[in-house]
């Protein structure tokens, strides 16, 4: 992104979006609808997960149907620590990062030796394994889930005890994640990942051991997603193994596609649209999954690149018309 990019339509849209998000608590207070901040908080937490998925799927072509497991690992880090009366925020984060990193390292090392159909199914299977592991732990609620009685504790102005504080934590981490993705894509690491996605044989022939880069990306994205999980646990006050099923991972992929896979802001746009659509459609009809599913099928068959791509096309049209 250089200076010329800043005056493009996409950049404008995203800039306005970010400003609105920054002052959102103010806006929801003024509108007298504080619950909207809750909806927004939940959406942005999911957006962080989708940003992390973009790192491996959008930049690296790794279609993981097991990514939601890391949301679960992050949330359970908070839940289980709180169960033992350990509420220190930095401890929660440390547990989340370490456990997700290790799980990703082991499962990634095995999964990334495979390709195509195998890879997708193996990521699915590993997340189901994690799901079953947690379901069978009676102590931590098993099927029924685990109530989280208090939020992660951070000192002073970093506190996330009230909804405003938590919201800014979520927004902060989201912005950090977006920044990280942006820099990574254009840095050496991102170039290797991108190249390997399009032509792995060529990259290896140049001397890149692509497996190592993919594994690193996989672990990093898992850790980023677990941060989303920590925030989710705090926001929800409750965590159940359901969050780790492969169907939840498929939803994350759906959100990414809607926004534009491989773009920087796509994950944010896609998650917003997905959640808003979900909120709206579910009030209209109990069986809203039906039009939702049909919409997804239509979207893919039509072959469009998501919101980000749609904005790009608009730009081109505007430029042609002067």
């Amino acid at each position, binding site marked *: 992104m250089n200076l010329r990019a800043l005056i493009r339509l996409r950049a404008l849209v995203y800039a306005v979006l970010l400003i609105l998000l920054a002052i959102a608590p103010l806006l929801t207070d003024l509108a007298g609808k504080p619950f909207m901040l809750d909806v927004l908080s939940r959406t942005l937490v999911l957006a962080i997960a989708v940003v992390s998925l973009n790192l491996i799927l959008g930049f690296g072509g790794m279609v993981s149907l097991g990514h939601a497991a890391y949301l679960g690992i992050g949330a359970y880090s908070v839940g289980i620590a709180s169960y033992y009366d350990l509420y220190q925020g930095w401890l929660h984060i440390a547990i989340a990062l370490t456990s997700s990193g290790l799980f990703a390292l082991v499962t990634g090392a095995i999964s990334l030796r495979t390709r195509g159909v195998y890879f997708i199914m193996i990521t699915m299977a590993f997340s189901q394994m994690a799901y079953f592991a947690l379901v069978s732990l009676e102590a931590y609620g098993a099927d029924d889930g685990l109530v989280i009685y208090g939020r992660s504790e951070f000192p002073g102005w970093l506190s996330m005890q009230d909804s405003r504080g938590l919201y800014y934590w979520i927004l902060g981490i989201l912005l950090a994640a977006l920044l990280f993705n942006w*820099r990574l894509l254009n*840095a*050496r690491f991102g*170039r290797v990942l991108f*190249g390997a996605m399009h*032509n792995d044989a060529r990259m*290896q*022939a*140049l*001397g890149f051991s692509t497996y190592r880069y993919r594994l690193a990306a996989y672990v990093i994205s898992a850790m980023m997603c677990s941060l989303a999980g920590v925030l989710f646990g705090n926001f929800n006050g409750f965590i159940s193994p359901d969050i780790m099923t492969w169907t939840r991972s498929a939803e994350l992929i759906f959100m990414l596609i809607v926004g534009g896979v491989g773009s920087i802001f796509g994950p944010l746009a896609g998650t917003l649209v997905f959640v808003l659509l979900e909120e709206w459609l579910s009030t209209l009809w109990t069986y809203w999954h039906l039009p939702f599913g049909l919409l997804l099928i239509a979207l893919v068959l039509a072959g469009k690149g998501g919101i980000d791509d749609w904005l790009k096309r608009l730009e081109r049209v505007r430029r042609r018309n002067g």
Partner: protein
Amino acid sequence: MADPLLQLQALNKHYGGIPATDNLSLDIESGEVHAIIGPNGAGKTTLIAQIAGSLAPDSGRVVFAGEDITQLDVAQRARAGLARSFQITSLILPMTLLENMMLAVQARSGHSFRFWKPVSREQGMRESAMHYLQQVGLADRAGLLASAISHGEQRQLEVGMALAMQPRMLLLDEPMAGMGKQESARMVELLAALKQDKTLLLVEHDMDAVFFLADRLSVLVGGRLIATGSIDEVRQNPEVQRAYLGESHA
């Protein structure tokens, strides 16, 4: 006299009953241009693949600069100094020529676990990439997407990327494939310029190019090496005349 740069020792590769590579041994001297010729299906690409590491032989050894590299994978061999260009053009199509070339330079510039600094701001790599683009005559096309240039230019880029790896040896699998007269001539010029300081192992069908460039020839038929030597020696070999060269070129 120095050891040969590349030593192929009793390589074997069989698919079912079919010998793609049949007890093949060959030495490539440092600094020479060595061409491998043979009819279609003789196993030339299979041989290149086994040297580059993308295919494992059933038995035999590949020794490069005195070291046994038979167990090394493609990337490891590339880092050891073996550069390969593919028979079917293999580039990162959604990237520009410059970006493709920078990847080749990047591979030789330390590790790529760098997450922050944009690659476009790495001046040294950029200059190096432009230098190699110039060497293959593509400097003015640097900003174009690899998918947007002609077939011949794509193959030039491939050779350029192989050069940018600063290899000790270049494996070129049919560099002239699919090229017209003009493009072929340009490629021959490019390869001729490399003769001075690089070792080239070349698979080609274009006989004019082969006779112009090669110091030595090897003839591959049915996975077996039936002759090796200077151009004249090979030309006069009766088995070769019978099996391959035919009337028009001999």
